[in-house]
């Protein structure tokens, strides 16, 4: 009996070990492991990270940003002109096709933009909020009329959610049908297979308007791998070629690994701690300042990111235009913090710190708790999952929470509207911060066409928000991404787009 058991175990082990692993592949594949899942392929419907990354591959925009220079270049629009008052844009389309060979028309463009602008379920209509109307002048010409001039209008037309989809297809299959499995694609790639929550397989779009792109004929697999440890292991064994969302603690190890290119790529990401201005203790300015002075974000950045990120000086992403790198922000000072808290009369108050999942949040939360306890607050940590986090912050049922966000473009307009404007939809990112001056400046900033004046406006906004501690700035985090070395020219842009069409594979 014993020999039987042994024989069985040996057989099982042998079978399992000998079974061919997935490494030796005949067709070339680029596999990207990301913790962020693709949940919908409809560009107007979601602003979640996993979806943003995909939209860029499936849908071309009117303008595109040069991956190397970062400049705006013609996309589906071959050329364009704007009136001097900035109230009308006329865009001329090139001869481009959808993945099924049907032409991309001005009607498709108008339809796609209109969906983003006015569809009730549009996830992010704000880039087109200043638009009055979009119309197809002829088959190749689109006219956009504005409610008011908007400085970053052209940049907004490069956003991930204004990708062009086929009107005919949506009319034919319905909104759900058109994007459920294999949508018509106007970008470099098209969907080959989608297993929600598991992987999305893309293959090169033969009808892509940029001749010779994608450079490689490899299919692309976007795999959802939630655990960074698992993803790292897969990268090392060659099961994936790219690992998105490397943990800071993994960086050194991956850097030292053969065949792996561990890179820190610039991003529009900022880590902050939200504070709830709607209730005590952080409805009190001095209590907020005390909380901010108590957090030494230089030390925190060093501890959490091993120094790979840069300590933040304002609550807005440091990569935005007009950002003043020299502004000192609030410099940590425990004594001052204690004093401010004592003055605020909020000492001893309970602070509910809610933590979303992920080791970074946990770590920051622990540090916040320790620091604030030291100045005399009573911080309590509560773990929540993502929907729970949105629920709690949206309803203002929290006092502080570490989180991050990313601005899609480098223009600060959207960022300010999202994070600081108290009269915009976001309740200043659920902090319920509401400063009249900031609100006014927000409107001014988006209308002002002169870059120098805009710089002054946005620097003033940053300064007010920082000093009033709308949020506590933590750090500006690059994207930590590890690549297999045989991939060339693959990177992630600050707007979270893969440069897959430029990528080639070297053996």
């Amino acid at each position: 009996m014993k020999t039987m058991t042994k024989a069985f175990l040996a057989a099982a082990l042998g079978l399992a070990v000998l079974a061919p692993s997935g490494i030796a592949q005949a067709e070339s594949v680029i596999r990207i492991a990301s913790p962020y899942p693709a949940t919908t392929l409809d560009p107007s419907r979601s602003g979640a990270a996993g979806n943003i990354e995909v939209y860029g591959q499936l849908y071309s925009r009117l303008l595109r940003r040069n991956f190397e220079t970062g400049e705006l270049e013609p996309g589906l629009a071959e050329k364009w002109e704007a009136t001097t008052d900035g109230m009308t844009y006329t865009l001329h389309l090139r001869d481009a096709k959808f993945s099924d060979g049907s032409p991309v028309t001005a009607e498709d463009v108008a339809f796609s933009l209109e969906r983003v602008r006015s569809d009730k379920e549009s996830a992010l209509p704000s880039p087109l909020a200043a638009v009055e109307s979009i119309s197809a002048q002829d088959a190749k010409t689109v006219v956009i009329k504005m409610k008011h001039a908007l400085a970053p209008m052209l940049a907004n037309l490069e956003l991930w959610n204004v990708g062009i989809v086929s009107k005919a297809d949506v009319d034919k299959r319905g909104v759900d049908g058109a994007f459920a499995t294999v949508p018509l694609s106007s970008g470099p790639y098209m969907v080959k297979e989608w297993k929600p929550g598991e992987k999305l397989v893309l293959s090169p779009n033969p009808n892509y308007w940029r001749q010779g792109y994608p450079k490689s004929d490899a299919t692309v697999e976007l795999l959802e791998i939630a655990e960074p440890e698992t993803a790292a292991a897969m990268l090392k064994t060659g099961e994936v070629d790219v690992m998105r969302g490397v943990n800071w603690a993994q960086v050194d190890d991956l850097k030292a690994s053969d065949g792996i290119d561990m890179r820190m790529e610039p991003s529009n990401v900022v880590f902050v701690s939200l504070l709830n201005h709607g209730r005590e203790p952080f409805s009190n300015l001095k209590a907020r300042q005390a909380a901010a002075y108590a957090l030494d974000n230089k030390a925190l950045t060093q501890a959490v990111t091993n120094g790979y990120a840069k300590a933040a000086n304002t609550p807005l992403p440091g990569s935005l235009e007009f950002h003043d790198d020299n502004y000192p922000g609030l410099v940590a000072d425990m004594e001052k913090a204690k004093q401010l808290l004592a003055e605020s009369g909020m000492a001893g108050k309970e602070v509910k710190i809610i933590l979303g999942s992920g080791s970074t949040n946990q770590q920051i939360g622990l540090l916040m708790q320790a620091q604030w306890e030291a100045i005399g607050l009573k911080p309590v940590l509560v773990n929540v999952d993502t929907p729970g986090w949105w629920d709690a912050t949206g309803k203002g049922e929290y006092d502080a929470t570490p989180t991050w966000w990313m601005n899609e473009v480098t223009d600060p307009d959207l960022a300010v509207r999202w994070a600081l404007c108290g009269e915009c939809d976001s309740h200043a990112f659920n902090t319920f911060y509401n400063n009249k001056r900031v609100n006014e400046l927000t409107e001014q900033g988006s209308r002002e066409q002169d870059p120098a004046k805009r710089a002054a406006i946005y620097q003033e906004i940053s300064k007010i928000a920082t000093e009033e501690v709308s949020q506590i700035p933590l750090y500006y985090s690059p994207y930590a991404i590890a690549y297999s070395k045989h991939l060339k020219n693959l990177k992630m842009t600050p707007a979270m787009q893969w440069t897959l069409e430029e990528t080639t594979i070297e053996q």
Partner: protein
Amino acid sequence: MSMEAAPIQSSMKQPAVILSWSLIVAGSIVGIWIVLAIFAPFVAPYDPTAIDIVNALKGPSATHWFGTDQVGRDVLSRVIHGARIDLLMCLAGVLPPLFIGTTVGLLSGYYGGAVDTLLMRLYDLTAAFPFFVLVLAIVGVLGPGLLNFFVALAVVGWVTYARLVRAEVMAIRDSEYIQAAQCLGYSDRVVLLRHVLPNAFGPVVAYAVSDAVLVMLAGASFGFLGMGAQPPLAEWGVMISDGSRYIRQAWWICTFPGLAAISLGLGLAFLGDGLGQLRRGQVST
């Protein structure tokens, strides 16, 4: 029937010796953990929640025997303090289901009829619900945290106890000493508590101890999924979960609490096994 039938088979002497030996070892493991838990503040070299960010992720050394975790807390101190929570979890995770289940089993087994039918349908329902899903959902509704985890366990866990007790009670219900008790005019309460329960309780105790192992593992598992104990509490499952993210840089963070969980689990498992054997042995002699 004569009483002839039973006598010949009783060759189980040998295991009994080893058994008591394993009982002693198991008992002392559990005992050590209980002592450590009670005196944790005195035994642990550091404050388990004290953050020392400069010394984060340092390996085992003379100052930190089990190393430090991602924010520089002493892993040894956290393992020792974790014993408090994990033992509490065993207790609070076992006793309420035991109480509810025993009551349900007692009533349903003794009275039968409509009470039994109703309770058994409830039993079917709970049993058909996947354990993890139900606990997950309940924790989801009530929010994560130890207390809610216990509530969820009580909602799910009574089932096994109820079935065990019910089966025992059904076997005892018609036995003659219960009939005698009824015939002597004892009230239902007396019959149930004094005559039925003590005799139906044996298997429950043995199961409860092994259930403690399951509860501890479940608690650790839910801590692992972020739904059990909340930070900065030191709980082994949470520590393993946190540590698993650093396993390559700092193997010690998740290895030591894992070993702690295994040792306590082993102690409890052998204790439960030993008690079960002891009980069976008692009955057969």
